[in-house]
């Protein structure tokens, strides 16, 4: 895309939303707290949504079972962190990292491996048939959720933040929880890595080309199937990572969390435009901010506010803010 005709309007939506609600919230310090919390939540949602949107863009496959990888990642993290009590109990952030990083890596590996199997046995037989895809992946989601219940039990498991990540940092009057800052940093790192892979490497070039015109890439001799499997596995692994972060954010995990987050992810994808990565980022930030603002102003309307937001965006751009030109 030419730098000069970059479509800036959707990007402006995020600050516009943040400024619009400012008068309703009143106190600047509360506003800062909520905005940072919203951005942190948005970054986590983006990590989860990015894989799903790429998979759809590449192969026209919408995976309704994406939520399973979120829950799987979070539950793996409870096991790993539970086994590393010495590290999580320490008050030093760096020692905590020694526990959280392996938990994230293991969660990503497990989610990625399950993703590989999911692609092979659930998704591959129904390429090109949307109706069956929706049905099958939904079935896969239910099976996955039930298997999680068999392994870890059906009840809520606490996932306490490691000692060093708790607490609040004050900037003037505005208190910001440490973990939210960490989430923003991790989110930015993942976003940067994704951006780098997508725009600066050959694989990224092929992925972007495949999203735009699959047949052309195939006719140039690239096996787009392999590329797709790779993207699917990475997407599942990212969902697992997002699950760990979501679990730490909520400080507890339930087997149903996959289905709950899935709903948010779908709203994000619809807002962003199916298949668009930058759209997914904007959608995720909007949803994260909206959820935190309404959670503060009218707690009962949290989920509805996101649906209202989605409806408003669809009135403006029926295909989502960045529609793929297909």
């Amino acid at each position, binding site marked *: 895309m030419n730098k000069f005709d970059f479509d800036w309007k959707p990007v402006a939506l995020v600050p516009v939303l943040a400024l619009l609600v400012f008068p309703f919230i009143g106190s600047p310090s509360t506003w800062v707290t909520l905005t940072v919390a919203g951005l942190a939540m948005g970054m986590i949602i983006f990590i989860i949504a990015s894989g799903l949107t790429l998979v759809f863009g590449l192969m026209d496959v*919408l995976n*309704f079972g994406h939520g399973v990888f979120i829950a799987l990642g979070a539950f793996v993290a409870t096991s790993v962190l539970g086994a590393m009590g010495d590290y999580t109990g320490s008050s030093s952030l760096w020692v905590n990292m020694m526990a959280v990083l392996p938990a994230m890596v293991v969660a990503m590996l497990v989610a990625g491996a399950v993703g590989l199997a999911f692609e092979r046995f*659930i998704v591959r*037989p*129904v390429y090109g048939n*949307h*109706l*069956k895809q*929706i*049905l*099958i992946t*939904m*079935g*896969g989601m*239910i*099976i996955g*959720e*039930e*298997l999680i*219940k*068999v392994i870890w039990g*059906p009840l809520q498991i606490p996932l306490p933040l490691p000692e060093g990540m708790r607490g609040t940092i004050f900037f003037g009057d505005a208190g910001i929880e440490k973990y939210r800052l960490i989430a923003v940093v991790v989110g930015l790192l993942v976003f940067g890595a994704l951006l780098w892979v997508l725009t600066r490497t050959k694989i990224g070039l092929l992925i972007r080309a495949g999203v735009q015109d699959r047949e052309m890439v195939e006719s140039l001799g690239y096996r787009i199937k392999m590329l797709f499997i790779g993207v699917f596995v990475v997407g599942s692994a990212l969902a697992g990572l997002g699950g760990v972060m979501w679990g730490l954010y909520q400080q507890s995990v339930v087997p149903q969390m996959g*289905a*709950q987050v*899935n*709903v948010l992810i*779908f*709203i994000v*994808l*619809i807002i962003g435009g*199916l298949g668009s990565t930058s759209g997914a980022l904007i959608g995720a930030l909007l949803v994260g901010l909206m959820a935190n603002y309404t959670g503060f102003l009218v707690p*009962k309307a949290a*989920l*509805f506010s*996101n*649906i209202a937001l*989605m*409806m408003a965006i*669809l009135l403006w751009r*029926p*295909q989502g803010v960045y529609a793929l030109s297909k």
Partner: protein
Amino acid sequence: MLTRLLSNDFPRSRILAVLLVVLLFALAFAPFLFPGVKALNVAAKILVFIVLVASFDLLLGYTGIVSFAQTMFFGIGAYGIAIASTGMGPGWTAIAVGLVVSLALSFVLALAVGLFSLRVRAIFFSMITLAVAAAFQTLASQLSDITGGEDGLTFKMPEVLSPGFQWAQEPLFGVSLDGRLLCYYLLFVVTLVALLAMLRIVNSPFGRVLQAIRENEFRAEAIGYPVVVYRTTSSVLSALFATVAGALLAIWLRYNGPDTSLSFEVMLDVLLIVVIGGMGTIYGAAVGAGIFVFAQSYLQDLLKLASEATGSLPWLSALLSPDRWLLWLGLLFVLSVYYFPTGVVGRLRALRAGG
């Protein structure tokens, strides 16, 4: 006469015809053939599910779009009756008001969701219905002053439909002629009429257009049929029938809560029945609902026995526990979509065409 009633859409398979007649006969005389409270409850549940599943088949099987909000409309119907009967006291006016209000609400919601999502891509519809249904479920448990929250609402029906009402002193064939019996036949008649109405809809010119859109959306649009309008109309019709099914459920149970009508589990049941029965055949909904509800009501006991029998192998026992019922449903669902996509009705019809 029969041709008119069935809208010229015959079962087209001898075995299927026999199955349908047996089902009709069994449901029509269920109170006399299968005495006992549980048997009658199972029969009534089959009736409610026939309407619900057929309404979903209108969307999935005939129009080719997947909605995850069918239980939302089902719930609206059930809550309509429940809230009206609780607020206004038992009576026919309460039932009428509840039904009309919930039908209107379903109409508006289905229209809004359809217009917003179907003008872009059919896949949007699935995603948006999932989101809206989740939001509605949260709302229903949050507004506990009106909906009773997680506990739900227990309410009374007009006296004529209550078990205490005896309209004949002498029992007939050993069955006491009470309000419960009348209630059952109310359900039976409404189900029969709704099923025939849906059969009429899918065999009308309108239904043909829906099937044309299912087969090839682009071509249907090119011939000059506005796809969005047809798909939205179909989703509205489907929502209205689901609302009626919900109202029937509430009338029968005299109770409604989130688990009975709104939960995702019910949605999964509906999906599975449509696939097992055969997508795109209203008869499949009837046969599927009959088989499935019957199996569900009695198989869970079997699963419990199996779980207890394998108590020495804790891992296997955990898999077979009745709490893991959904696991087996999910597996069955995935396998049916792969290996049994045309369902019972499709198989039976293919059998006849082949031999």
